[in-house]
């Protein structure tokens, strides 16, 4: 069992958990993820490591409610436990293993969309800890979905916050901010974009125009996360890659996003049914298209 030492809501539908996982905290690096299982009947699902403390042996996870399992996880409180936390899985971000002199030469921009703030944070923190500069854009639907702004501000050289509806920070999608920054004279040699697949796709289309190499972090359906099941396969540059062992970070200009987005709907109806069943329990009376309650 993995003890939750801290649980808190950070913004709309989004919760932060600090979890005791000493082996993982000792060895994880920015860019890596864990696979979590809540309890005996729970499914295994991947979550990017949002922060870690090697001393206290804890890792931080940020979860947004999207289906039955995330909804169940978000009900857990301080003092509860997760049955399984497996990791760190996947490869660290490239800059972690590259010579620092090389990394220093690259003018870096991180773009976090929605829940993407969580996986971007440890990367930006790594930059700060290594005395390097980088800019960060955080974008969300509206102000209710912005979190960790102060935390990010403390480690980013420049932080730009934007909302799609203009309810907070700048007005517009992250791609607009990116274009505005470039128009304002900012120059970047490398972009890291993490967030919903559709957001990463459009960031990549934008950076392609400016010819800026772009790394994305893929978070497909996964079971074991160790290279056994093959559920997380993606097409990257026309080749089959496994997000768990070849990724999760890939060259965004080579990722086939349309195909990857299609694959995420594989279990959508089943997950929707599971979420309804979970939320409504015995009071469930239709709407799932399955139980016959609509007739």
């Amino acid at each position: 069992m993995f003890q939750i030492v801290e649980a808190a809501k950070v913004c709309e539908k989004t919760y932060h958990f600090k979890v005791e996982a000493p082996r993982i905290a000792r060895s994880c690096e920015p860019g890596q993820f864990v696979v979590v299982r809540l309890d005996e009947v729970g499914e295994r699902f991947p979550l990017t490591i949002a922060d870690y403390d090697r001393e206290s042996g804890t890792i931080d996870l940020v979860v947004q409610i999207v289906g039955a399992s995330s909804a169940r996880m978000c009900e857990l409180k301080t003092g509860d436990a997760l049955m399984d936390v497996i990791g760190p899985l996947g490869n660290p971000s490239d800059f972690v293993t590259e010579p620092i002199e090389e990394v220093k030469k690259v003018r870096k921009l991180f773009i976090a969309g929605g829940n993407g703030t969580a996986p971007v944070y440890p990367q930006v923190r790594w930059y700060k800890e290594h005395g390097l500069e980088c800019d960060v854009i955080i974008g969300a639907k509206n102000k209710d979905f912005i979190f960790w702004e102060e935390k990010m501000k403390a480690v980013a050289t420049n932080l730009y916050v934007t909302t799609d509806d203009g309810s907070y920070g700048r007005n517009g999608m992250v791609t607009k901010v990116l274009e505005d920054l470039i128009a304002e004279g900012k120059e970047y040699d490398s972009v890291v974009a993490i967030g919903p697949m559709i957001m990463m796709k459009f960031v990549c289309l934008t950076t392609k125009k400016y010819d800026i190499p772009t790394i994305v972090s893929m978070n497909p359906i996964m079971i074991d996360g160790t290279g056994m099941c093959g559920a997380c396969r993606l097409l990257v540059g026309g080749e089959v890659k496994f997000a768990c062992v070849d990724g999760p970070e890939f060259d965004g200009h080579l990722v086939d996003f349309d195909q990857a987005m299609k694959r995420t709907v594989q279990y959508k109806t089943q997950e929707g049914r599971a979420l309804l069943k979970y939320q409504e329990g015995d009071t469930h009376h239709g709407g799932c298209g399955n139980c016959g309650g609509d007739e």
Partner: protein
Amino acid sequence: MAAPGMERVPVREQDPLVRAKNFDEVCLGYNAEEATEEAKRCLNCKNAQCVTGCPVHIDIPKFVKEIADGDPEAAFQTLSASSSLPAVCGRVCPQETQCEGKCIRGIKGDPISIGKLERFAADYAREKGIKPAKCETKNGKKVAVIGSGPAGLSCAGDLAKLGYDVTIFEALHAPGGVLTYGIPEFRLPKDAVVQPEIANMAHLGVKIELDVVVGKSTTIDQLMEDEGFDAVFVGSGAGLPMFMGIPGEQALGVFSANEYLTRSNLMKARLEEYDTPMPESKKAVIVGGGNVAMDAARTALRLGAETHIVYRRSEAELPARAEEVHHAKEEGIQFNLLCNPVEILMDENGWVRGITCIRMELGEPDESGRRRPVEIPGSEFEIECDTVIMSLGTSPNPLIASTTPGLDVNRKKCIVAEEATGVTSKEGVFAGGDAVTGAATVILAMEAGRNGAAGIHEYLSKK
């Protein structure tokens, strides 16, 4: 009418039409009376060939005689001296090509049902709560075993019996490796058979730490330098599933057999109370002809799908055990032999709607000695289906090799290890099973585990 003693005592099985709709074990095994009668057919050869056919060299005439004498407990201890998983091996070993294949009785009649007798003795011991004999004196040396599949369990069991302090590190949340995530319930019951065999490991003093991915959570070097392990055995198993690289393979409804079986077995997705979703299929096509393909097909069938196997060679070349093929056919699985997929067809939403195959004929033998299948031009045809399960084998998992400096891999990325001892290129590190050979069988992995244990014992005895 055959001469008395020429035919084996038949084993009871669930009716094919009944079992095609449930996950209960297919083979019901012998009762005491049947086992004794079958055991009495054994000629008790002085120069027993069956033992030479057994990868872990069980003293077969001895345990069979003990059953014939009405002492299944003694038979279990004889089995346990050579095997850590007799209840598993009695069920999943390919006996027809091993012990039973060498049985003298088999020349003129049926060979002794050694596998079913092994199963009987192991099941008897479990039901009566009889445990394998353990070593009471510890030698104070620590060995780490990576992976709790057949290779790791067998290695750990042997080392514990020699007095070593053994810890198994398992990447998944449940122990057993392929016995747990791969082989289905109807062939190898989990709660009734696999878990008790693993519990016997704890009885021998073996510790199992779950959720530890060696190569990620920790490394072999860290285990040896920081955690004080004197030797490490790598039994991490096979790895990434292979795909064909044909158009449409990314369609929704295309799975690797590993994923399909892991969902059903490890995650129990087929049961309502578990959260993991299971693909819902009306008509499933399984590509491949090995044991894993049979397992996936028979699982899909039990979940209600009309099920087809597509295999590019003929029946004679099916790599699956004869018994599995026989069972699959009895249950109503349709075999499309000598044909090979060329494209997976999708509907407008990206879901599988069918598979186009081409007919094959057998040409000259290839390097594996099997006749090479050759396409017959213009013979393409479609099979309508909503699920395709690719069961084409696996390629080695890179996690350990890539994080262990000094551990050599071969051209196929398998770990290089000496067969008889498990010795690798890195001092103190031994390896065996699918991680070394590529995908093979449970018993061959167990043999490699035993060899590794012998190699580690020799290495640490000299140290």
